[in-house]
């Protein structure tokens, strides 16, 4: 007979988690947290090794017999090649300064998401396999051997880091956990364990030049469709050029802007801005992707996919390159591009043809960020603006991780927004600028199947938005990143309904007074601007 429970026992629900050391808690891979594995053909397409079908929730991951050897050899190779990696493996004193700085830890409460522990997943293997102390003292020295459960744990958590580098800001030694993630992902890619949301864009980008796999005519056609939208909403006809040799400037932006909402409105913003100032520029259907999911695969892949930007600049004979609003694109460009590739001789130090400003910061890179460019135009009074068209918007600005922490661009987007919108409110200081919280879905984690993970990671950012939403009625979250534009709407839908996401250039274009424009009663989304209903309708209403 079953034991009869006392009323008190019936009420007692054991809610306590396991209390063991993190090394003793086995990994529990859950749906909603991981992204689907890469399809074998997408791995083969770029000649990466060990393409195979597998599932994270199955016992057997179908790895080659010598997977351990491959992993450790790859590990050793990277320790020799990247001095930073070797240092990061050795010097962490586990002070815990980074522990509570990660958006995934804050949102999930999972201690393995503390950056120190996430790095320790690899570091423990480093100690156990490569250091004498670790081999002799084992657990006492925080060391362990590489086993299949350990590998699974490493894999699971490598894809719970968005490489945002917030933790590294607080590390007294400057350990960059993002680099550990980057190299860790390189290691698991040695035996075909990438996720499809990264691998397929890599393959597409290799084949057609952009993540979405848009063929040149489609890329061109999509932009022309958006020109049609501009004609309908603004009343002016824009005819951009593609692959035009002899243009002064090549414009490169993430392909998300060419396809997905609300990125397309940002792209319409670029088109209108360039038309407004009469810029001599061209689009390219070859260098048609600023983003670089190769960066989330391996540094070699990032280099390979990045090559097309300088190539195309050289082929078209442009003087310099202008880049659109993107996050990791700018980390790759700003911190890697001119060491990845031999800088092209034909390019010149960027000078704005409208204001004459020399962008000295881009002297070696030859590429300027659209927000730097726009801020300069505004500063010199070159834009005719009517910020009151954005009066129905109460705007806050989300510093995307890479432009802020990766390239130090903090003021320009704010300057632009304040000039095109009359209502701007900052989020609390420990959530913006260098200390900005990640959107929670960067570094290739912006898939749909890992939505719970995205919501966890997006919580700290959303919490700060919620604060300004409640306090000031903020209804627009501006950003300069295509991944932000793709993922923050979902985060807002869950955490802060009533807040929309917009690219900074979209806000600019809504305020731009274009020559020959109509009465501008609708915005670039085709939505009526409050208080600006067309005159005929007003007249009819009056009757």
């Amino acid at each position, binding site marked *: 007979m079953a034991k009869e429970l006392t009323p*008190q026992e019936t*009420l*007692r*629900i054991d*809610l*306590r*988690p*396991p*209390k063991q050391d993190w090394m003793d808690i086995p990994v*529990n891979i*859950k749906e*909603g947290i991981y992204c689907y594995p890469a399809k074998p*053909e*997408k791995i083969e397409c770029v000649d990466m090794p060990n393409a195979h079908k597998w599932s994270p929730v199955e016992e057997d991951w179908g790895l080659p017999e010598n997977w351990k050897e491959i992993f450790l050899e790859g590990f050793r190779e990277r320790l020799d090649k990247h001095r930073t990696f070797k240092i990061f493996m050795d010097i962490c004193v586990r002070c815990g300064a980074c*522990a*509570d700085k990660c958006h995934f*830890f*804050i*949102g*999930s*409460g*999972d*201690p393995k998401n*503390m950056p120190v522990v996430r790095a320790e997943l690899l570091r423990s293997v480093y100690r156990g396999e490569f250091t004498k102390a670790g081999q002799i003292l084992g657990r006492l020295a925080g060391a362990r051997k590489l086993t299949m459960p350990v590998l699974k744990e490493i894999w699971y958590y490598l894809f719970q880091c968005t490489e945002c580098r917030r933790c590294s800001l607080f590390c007294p030694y400057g350990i960059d956990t993002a680099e550990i993630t980057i190299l860790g992902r390189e290691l698991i890619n040695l035996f075909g364990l990438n996720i499809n949301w990264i691998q*397929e864009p890599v*393959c*597409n980008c290799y084949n057609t030049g952009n993540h*979405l*796999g*848009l063929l040149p005519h*489609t890329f061109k*056609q*999509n932009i*022309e*469709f958006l020109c*049609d*939208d501009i*004609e*309908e909403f603004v009343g002016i006809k824009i005819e951009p050029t593609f692959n035009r040799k002899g243009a002064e400037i090549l414009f490169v932006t993430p392909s998300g802007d060419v*396809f*997905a*909402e609300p990125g397309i409105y940002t792209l319409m913003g670029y088109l209108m801005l360039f038309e407004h100032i009469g810029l001599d520029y061209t689009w390219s259907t070859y260098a048609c992707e600023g983003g670089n999911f190769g960066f989330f695969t391996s540094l070699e892949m990032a280099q390979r996919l990045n090559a097309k930007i300088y190539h195309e600049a050289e082929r078209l004979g442009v003087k310099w390159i202008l880049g659109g609003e993107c996050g990791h694109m700018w980390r790759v460009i700003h911190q890697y591009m001119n060491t990845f590739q031999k800088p092209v001789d034909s390019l010149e130090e960027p000078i704005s043809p409208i204001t004459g400003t020399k962008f000295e910061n881009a002297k070696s890179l030859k590429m300027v960020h659209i927000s730097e460019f726009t801020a300069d135009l505004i500063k010199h009074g070159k834009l005719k603006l009517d910020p009151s068209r954005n009066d129905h918007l109460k705007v806050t600005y989300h510093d995307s991780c890479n432009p802020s922490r990766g390239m130090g661009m903090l003021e320009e987007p704010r300057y632009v927004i304040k000039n095109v919108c009359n209502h701007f409110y900052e989020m*609390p200081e*420990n*959530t913006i600028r260098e200390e900005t919280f990640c959107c929670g879905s960067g570094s290739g984690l912006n898939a*749909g*199947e890992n*939505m*719970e993970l995205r*919501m*966890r990671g997006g*919580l*700290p950012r959303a*919490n*700060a938005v919620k*604060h300004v939403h409640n306090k000031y009625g903020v209804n627009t979250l501006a950003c300069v990143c295509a991944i932000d534009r793709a993922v923050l709407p*979902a985060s807002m*839908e*869950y*955490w802060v309904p009533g807040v929309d996401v917009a690219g900074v250039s979209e806000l600019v274009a809504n305020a731009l007074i274009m020559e020959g424009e109509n009465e501008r009663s609708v915005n670039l989304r085709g939505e009526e601007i409050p208080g600006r209903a067309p005159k005929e309708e007003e007249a009819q209403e009056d009757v």
Partner: protein
Amino acid sequence: MALNDIIEKKRDSIVEMWLNTLFSTYHPKTAQFLENKRNKFDNPVGSAFKEAIGPLFDEIVGDFDQEKIRQCLDEIIRIRAVQDFIPSQAIGIFVVLKDVVRKVIPSKEMGPEIYEELFIFDAKVDRMALMAFDVYMACRERIWEIKLNDFKKRPIFAEGQMCLSYMLRRGLKHRQKRGEVEQFTDIRPQEN
């Protein structure tokens, strides 16, 4: 003494123990962080729990305003619904209030004279637990809705090519206006 008077006297101890029980559902290191980190933007989860649990308790022993209770529950459950909890763990914390109250109130004061009031209190806790279930389900359904919307908005990967129907439909609208395309009827269900 009436149960409500006893509870009123012990209000802070009950809320504190309830909150600690909530924190103890996390790993000890996480619980320490949730409890001690004061800035609400550095510690949104701990702060949300701290801010919601007191008013929630006051509503239960007080007016039992269902809307206010739902709001407090939402603050807590919206977070726990996306964390690593199975459903009973995510909302079990509300049922546990019965146990917390019995632990805080000395047994000598739990005499038969308050049984009826205790029965009413337990019923309110049960009601709150049922509401918690509703809120939890609403959050989970929201996640799935967002997931679905996310998929619907995105280009569909099929055989290595993107489905371009979204932009094509957008472009078609203009072409039809210009009379470039005459006979085309989109038979697919349209949104709105």
